[in-house]
C-alpha cells in the first residue's frame, strides 16, 4: 500500500462507523459557526465575553439534565442569563465590565461543577465530557440540534450582515443612523450563546474560546475584510475540528484539547508567515520579539 493510499484509507475507514459519521457532521458544523460568530467577538474585543458565556452554560446544562429537559435549552438559558447579569452589574455599579464578567462566569462555573458533581453520583452524566469535549460520543439528537442551531446562526448572520458590520465597526455611528443597536447587541449575545451550546460536546466549555477566536484571528492576519475573515476562518475551523476528531479517534484523546492544539498551530503559522503581518515575513517589526529590557532591538 502506497503512503498516500494509507493516509486516505486512515481517513475514510473510520467513517464506516455510524458514530464517526455523526461526529464528523457535528465537527464540520461547529467548526463553521464558531469561526463565523467568533469573528464578531474578535473584532469587538469581546474575547473574554466568549469565555464568560461558555463557562456560564454549565449550571443550566446540569439543571436541564436533572429535570430531563433538552440540555441544549438549559445551557442556552444559563448562557444568556450570564450576559444579562454581567450587563446589569456593569450598568448599576461602578464595577468595570471585565471584572463583572470574571465574577459572574466563575460563580456560574462553580455552581455548574457543584451541581454536576452532585447529580453525577446517581446518573451517567460525565463532567469531563462537558469540560473537555467528547466528540465521539455525540448522539443523533445532538446532530439534529447542532444542525438546527447552525442553520439559525448562519441564516441570522447572512441576513443581518450589513447591520452587524456597521454596528461592530462603529456602534455610535450605527446608533446615530437610527439602527436599533441594543437589539443588534442582544442578537449577537444570543448567537454567541447558541454557538457555545452547540460546541459543548465537541470542544467542551473550557476550551471553546479557542475555536471561537483562533480561526478568525488566523484569517484576520491573512485577509482584509470581515466576510473574508469569516469564510477563511470557517475553513480553518472545519480543518481543525475534523483533524481533532481523527486525533481523538486514533489516539484516544479528549476532542477539545486535540482540536485546540490544531487550531493554535494554524494561528502560529499565520503569526509567523502571514504575508502582511507575519513576524518572519515582516522582519522590520519582528525585532520587537525581544523585550526591550533585555537590551535587544535598539
Amino acid at each position, binding site marked *: 500500500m502506497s503512503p498516500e493510499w494509507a493516509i486516505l484509507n486512515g481517513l475514510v475507514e473510520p467513517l464506516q462507523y455510524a458514530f464517526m459519521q455523526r461526529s464528523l457532521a457535528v465537527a464540520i458544523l461547529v467548526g463553521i459557526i464558531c469561526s463565523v460568530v467568533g469573528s464578531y467577538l474578535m473584532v469587538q474585543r469581546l474575547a473574554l465575553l466568549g469565555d464568560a458565556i461558555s463557562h456560564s452554560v454549565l449550571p443550566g446544562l446540569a439543571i436541564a439534565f436533572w429535570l430531563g429537559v433538552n440540555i441544549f435549552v438549559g445551557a442556552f438559558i444559563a448562557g444568556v442569563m450570564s450576559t444579562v447579569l454581567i450587563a446589569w452589574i456593569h450598568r448599576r455599579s461602578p464595577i468595570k465590565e471585565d471584572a463583572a464578567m470574571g465574577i459572574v462566569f466563575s460563580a456560574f462555573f462553580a455552581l455548574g461543577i457543584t451541581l454536576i458533581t452532585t447529580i453525577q453520583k446517581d446518573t451517567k452524566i460525565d463532567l469531563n465530557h462537558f469540560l473537555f469535549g467528547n466528540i465521539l460520543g455525540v448522539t443523533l439528537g445532538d446532530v439534529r440540534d447542532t444542525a438546527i442551531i447552525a442553520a439559525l446562526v448562519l441564516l441570522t448572520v447572512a441576513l443581518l450582515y450589513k447591520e452587524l458590520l456597521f454596528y461592530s465597526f462603529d456602534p455610535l*455611528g450605527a446608533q*446615530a443612523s437610527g439602527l436599533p443597536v441594543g437589539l443588534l447587541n442582544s442578537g449577537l449575545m444570543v448567537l454567541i450563546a447558541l454557538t457555545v451550546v452547540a460546541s459543548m460536546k465537541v470542544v467542551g466549555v473550557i476550551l471553546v474560546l479557542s475555536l471561537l477566536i483562533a480561526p478568525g484571528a488566523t484569517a484576520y492576519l491573512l485577509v482584509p475584510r470581515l466576510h473574508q475573515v469569516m469564510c477563511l476562518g470557517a475553513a480553518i475551523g472545519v480543518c481543525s475540528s475534523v483533524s481533532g476528531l481523527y486525533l481523538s479517534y486514533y489516539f484516544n484523546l479528549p476532542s477539545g484539547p486535540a482540536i485546540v492544539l490544531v487550531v493554535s498551530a494554524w494561528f502560529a503559522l499565520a503569526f509567523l508567515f502571514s504575508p502582511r503581518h507575519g513576524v518572519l515575513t515582516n522582519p522590520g517589526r519582528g525585532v520587537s520579539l525581544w523585550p526591550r529590557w533585555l537590551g535587544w532591538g535598539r
Partner: protein
Amino acid sequence: MTPSAKIIVDHLSVNYRDVQALRNISFTVQPGHLVGIFGPNGAGKSTLIQAMLGLMPLVTGRVLYGDEELAHQLAQVAYVPQRSQIDWTFPATVWDVVMMGRVKKTGWLNRFSTASRQLAQQALGRVGMLEFRDRPIGALSGGQQQRVFLARALAQEAEIFCFDEPFVGVDQKTEAVIFQIFRELAEAGKIVLVVNHDLGESITNFDHLILLNKELIAAGPRPWVLTRENMARAYGGHITFFGHVA
C-alpha cells in the same frame, strides 16, 4: 421633514456618570450655515452632539427638528464620531465603510441597490478617495481615514450633518477638502454642526458659533460670539484671543 426645518435645542441638561455635563442649554440652528461648536476641553461639546441625537439620555429638555423630536428622525442624520472612537485595525476596506452609510436606507434583509453603490462611488469621488476603495482602512493616513468617513456621511443623503473633531490628526490638504465640502453642504441648505477646538485661523470658516462651557456662553453669528468677554467666560481668561479673526 421639509429641508428648510431648523433644530431647536430647548433647555437641555445632561449628566455624565452622575456629574452634570451640560446645564440648561438652549439655541437654534438654521439650515444653510456652517456651525462650529467650540469650548475648552471637557466643556461638553461631544456630549452636546450625542445628547441632541438621543445617543445619551437627557435629564431635562428636548431637541426638536421641525415639529418632532430629532432623536426620532435619525434617518435624516449623518454623524461622524471622534476618530478615537474607531478601531482602525478593523477588517474593513474603504468601500465597506462608505457602504455603511447606505445600511439604514437600504433596510432590513435587503441587498444594497445599484443606486446605493453609485451614491457611495460619487461620495468617494467627491472626497478624492475613489482610487483607494479597495484599501483596508488601517492602511490609510489619518487625513484619508477622515475623508472616508466624510464620504460615508455624504452617502447617507442626510439633511443634518454632525462631525465630532473632524480635523484631529488631519493634514492641510484634507482640512481644505473637508471645509470645501462643509461649505457646499451648507450652501445646499443642509444643517452642518462641527465640534472643533482649534481657535486659530480656521475658525473663520464657520458662519455661526456655539460657545460652550458646561452651559451655553453664546450662540449666533461668529462676530457676535467671538467677543473678549465671551471668550474669557468660556476659557477662564487664560486664552490668547485672536481679535482679528472675529
